[in-house]
């Protein structure tokens, strides 16, 4: 069954698009997520803050179905992801974009082929003309319109991140999961990526979960910040609220 590219994201602002309840995930004896709860609303940018190895990446990999949680539920648009079969998971994945920390561009394909891959693989109902237009629009969105025929190895770190972002956005997802989008970039490029995230989020009215410990990125992109500590949602608030917090666990991120 073919589906169309998500035309526009509609729905009320208070609608919960992701509801995570009592999520647990362990690797051997290491309990990474322990009774974790989180709700993300439409058009909301939620930044998940935490130390390295706190389980931030595990969290978003559970949301997209790359990892199976040990227990708990992850409702994405009302569907419980851990219980979905492969077909239903693919249907959800057309609405959820994922920006990998390492960009994960297919290095044997050109930039154009990288962008076309999702469109072709998700059984999206589009013609070659539509695909060409979507690729052009995606590259223009990230300010790299002349890179379609380049190979990933020819791109700088910042360019590769932009192309990865273009690939994530090409299906016009309603939810975007960012895994440390500014890690490994110089401060100037990192701020450009922050601006791009906010710009694209506004343009496509997407909800986002951004995994980061880059406090500038958190400040620039977050509507709400969640601190993940010991596998649990330790605290939750706006950037300013957390910035003013007297709690030593929260303060250490802002010092």
């Amino acid at each position: 069954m073919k589906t169309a590219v998500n035309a526009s994201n509609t729905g009320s602002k208070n609608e919960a698009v992701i509801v995570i309840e009592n999520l647990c995930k362990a690797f051997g004896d290491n309990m990474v997520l322990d009774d974790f709860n989180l709700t993300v609303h439409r058009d909301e940018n939620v930044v998940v803050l935490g130390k390295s190895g706190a389980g931030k990446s595990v969290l978003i990999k559970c949301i997209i179905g790359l990892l199976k949680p040990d227990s708990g539920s992850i409702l994405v648009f009302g569907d419980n992801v851990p219980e979905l079969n492969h077909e239903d998971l693919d249907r959800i994945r057309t609405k959820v974009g994922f920006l990998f920390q390492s960009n994960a561009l297919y290095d044997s394909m050109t930039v154009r082929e990288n962008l076309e891959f999702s469109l072709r693989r998700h059984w999206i109902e589009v013609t070659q003309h539509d695909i060409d237009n979507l690729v052009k629009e995606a590259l223009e969105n990230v300010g790299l319109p002349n890179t379609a025929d380049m190979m990933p190895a020819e791109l700088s770190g910042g360019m590769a991140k932009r192309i990865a972002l273009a690939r994530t956005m090409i299906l016009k997802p309603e939810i975007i999961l960012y895994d440390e989008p500014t890690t490994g970039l110089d401060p100037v490029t990192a701020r450009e990526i922050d601006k791009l995230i906010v710009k694209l989020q506004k343009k496509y009215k997407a909800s986002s979960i951004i995994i980061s410990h880059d406090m500038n990125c958190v400040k620039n992109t977050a509507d709400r910040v969640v601190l993940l500590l010991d596998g649990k949602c330790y605290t939750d608030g706006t950037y300013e609220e957390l910035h003013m917090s007297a709690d030593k666990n929260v303060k250490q991120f802002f010092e």
Partner: protein
Amino acid sequence: MDFFVKMREYFNQTGNIARFAGNFFTVGMKPRYEIKELLAQCYFIGYNSLPLVGLTGFIMGLVLTMQLRPSMVTYGVATELPVMVGIAIVREIGPVITGLIFAGKIGSSIGAELGSMKVTEQIDAMEVAGTNPFKYLVATRVVATTLMLPILTILGDAFSLFGAYIGVNIKSVTSFHLFFNDIFHSLAYSDLMPAVIKTFFFGFAVGIIGCYKGYFSNKGTRGVGSSANSAVVLASVLIFIIDLLAVQITDLFGLN
């Protein structure tokens, strides 16, 4: 104690490889079929390996003939040289040497490619993009190695026999027609068919081991190198084990 730990690891790995091979038949053989990727892999694995297989086959045939000739002259059976070389190449040396060359070139290439894709999260990205990476990456490569190795072996045999013909003509004069007439008269289907059939299993082993090692590569560049290396070693050992089993089976059916 260390011995038992290693034995447990060994049996664990054997079980995991068997399960991985089982997934090829259960998951990998179900639609949707990745025909375009399969053809691309056949081109890369088959066509691109032909120069190497051809060159090594040619040299192998040439050297084998030059090494055998003095002994055969000593025993006064130099005229049987084409027959002996022909049977040795078609039945045993051709399939095994081609299989080993193939394991070295393709096994390491698949192991390194998938290992690098795993480390850089490209396999996860593929899954997020609505693609079953096992079908797209593993099934296509295993089918391609299984189909391409028998073809490469037959072509490698042809290059080897041509090398043998050149080898014979270095010290004596034999016509092309007479040389190949001698070989084809002495060869039966029972020489050719088991040799070709076992190469399907060689190809399957190279594909499965290369994909398994790459797919479950540990993180980091060292892991990728180790995947490529162990893919070659394990596939080569498996080729000899399959060859041994094939000899026993053909013996059982009276084909030796």
